[in-house]
């Protein structure tokens, strides 16, 4: 039975039923009949009949109850429901109110009935298109979601997994606003004496930003052929190595007018034997240096041009010395600009205070602590922008 051209007539008045069947069959419908509401409901459910003509009073349950059951029990299927009545007992307003689409009075006037059936066919056809479209969208959405989950896993796998490296203990926090983030970070030793770290934030968030962050991450890979190792090996000083890396990235990603995607970053190198840090602040929020002895946290740098925005951008470095136990915090603007329910930003001051307050807690706990802190501030784990943070603690142990 094709659901598109089938009609169900419900009622036990033989005369009315015969008249309806004749006109429906004349209009090209396959017809099926039921005496009572229970049987009718079963037929609608089983065969997905989308056009129902029901006597105002059917045997076991009233027409009104049957109509309500069709509406309540069949959310997925839209049934076009017409009441008919030969005894002028039917109240058309009540019929529409309980969920009927139309009503006809018996005896039938053929012209009126044909017009009503045509109207029903139009609505049923539109409904079918809508259902098909929804099914397609649901399918497509499920596919996209699966893809995004895989992409999120790929991104997660790119994040550092080692937490104790030559001279440094590390930890991090990563909260993408959607499945994948425009934020990325990494750190790794280069040779025996250098430790490279960076955090970057591609303008915007979501897929487009994430693709750019993947591309940058690929440039900054830890291999000896990567940009980081090359710049260290080819430079006469750490500052020169940092600046040459930024210059190189800016040349590669400098935007044209059609694509204004740029990124901000902190890129730095720690000289492992001495704890000397040299970093470039390319439009990214200021790193915070926790000086363990003084129990004081200090913001470093006063900004700098982002990468990929201006061809002529010139980069400079900021330095600090890490003593054993000192920590360096780098984080994305999503942390500072995270708003609480009253629209208040988390902000630098709160962050610096918290870093100071937690100076005695082990670094291993800080990732989770800041995660909890910012999630609580945000009021949920759905963030408006990517939030990330990297924490480095100088141990001096080779």
């Amino acid at each position, binding site marked *: 039975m094709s659901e598109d051209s089938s009609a169900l007539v419900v009622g036990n008045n033989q005369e009315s039923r015969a008249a309806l069947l004749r006109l429906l069959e004349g209009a090209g419908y396959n017809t099926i009949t039921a005496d009572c509401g229970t049987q009718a409901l079963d037929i609608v459910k089983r065969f997905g009949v989308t056009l129902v003509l029901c006597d105002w009073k059917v045997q076991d349950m009233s027409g009104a109850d049957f109509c309500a059951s069709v509406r309540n029990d069949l959310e997925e299927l839209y049934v076009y429901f017409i009441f008919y009545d030969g005894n002028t007992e039917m109240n058309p307003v009540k019929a529409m109110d309980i969920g009927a689409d139309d009503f006809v009075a018996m005896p039938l006037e053929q012209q009126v009935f044909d017009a009503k059936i045509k109207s029903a066919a139009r609505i049923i056809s539109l409904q079918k298109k809508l259902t098909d479209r929804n099914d397609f969208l649901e399918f497509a959405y499920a596919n996209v979601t699966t893809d995004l989950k895989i992409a999120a896993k790929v991104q997660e796998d790119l994040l550092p997994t080692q937490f104790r490296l030559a001279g440094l203990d590390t930890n991090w926090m990563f909260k993408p606003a959607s499945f994948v983030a425009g934020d990325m970070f990494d750190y790794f030793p280069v040779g025996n004496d250098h430790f490279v770290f960076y955090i970057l*934030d591609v*303008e*915007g*968030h979501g897929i487009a930003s994430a693709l750019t962050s993947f591309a940058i991450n690929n440039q900054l890979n830890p291999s000896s052929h990567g940009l980081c190792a090359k710049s260290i090996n080819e430079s006469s000083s750490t500052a020169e190595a940092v600046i040459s890396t930024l210059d190189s990235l800016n040349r590669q990603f400098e*935007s044209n*007018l059609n694509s*204004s*995607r*740029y990124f*901000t970053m902190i890129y730095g190198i720690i000289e492992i034997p001495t704890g000397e840090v040299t970093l470039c602040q390319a*439009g*990214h*929020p200021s790193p915070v240096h926790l000086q363990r002895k003084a129990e004081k946290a200090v913001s470093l740098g*006063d*900004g*700098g*041009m*982002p990468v990929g*925005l*201006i061809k002529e951008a010139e980069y400079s470095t900021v330095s600090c010395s890490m003593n054993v136990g000192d920590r360096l915090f780098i984080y994305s*603007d999503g942390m500072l*600009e995270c708003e609480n329910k009253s629209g208040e930003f988390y902000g630098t001051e709160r962050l610096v205070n918290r870093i100071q307050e937690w100076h005695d807690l082990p670094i291993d706990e800080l990732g989770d602590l800041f995660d909890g802190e910012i999630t609580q501030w945000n009021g949920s784990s759905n963030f408006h*922008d990517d939030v990330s943070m990297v924490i480095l603690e100088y141990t001096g142990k080779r």
Partner: protein
Amino acid sequence: MSFETEIKDEIAVLRVTASRLDASIAPELKKVVSTIINDGTSRILLDLQSVKFMDSSGLGAVISSFKLTGQKGDFVICNINETVHEIFSLTHMDRLFDIYPSVDEGFQKMCA
């Protein structure tokens, strides 16, 4: 509409009426600026008085707009609040643009 444009003495005064210049309206800003330039006005005074918050996409759109006009003196910004100023300052973009405290002042400098 998140933007209003008024042409005065061949200068387009482009006012952002939204309170957030972020990813949701950044592409529109670029379009509005393109339209102004295509309509024959290449000098723009961007009024950010209503903007309380600007994110990286907003900044990107402002820079793109600046690039479209081509020259420093032809794209001037005025009326920025402290939060927006912090973004310009953090990214050193305050060195790239002429920023004035009011529309009148910006306008006078452009006419001078």
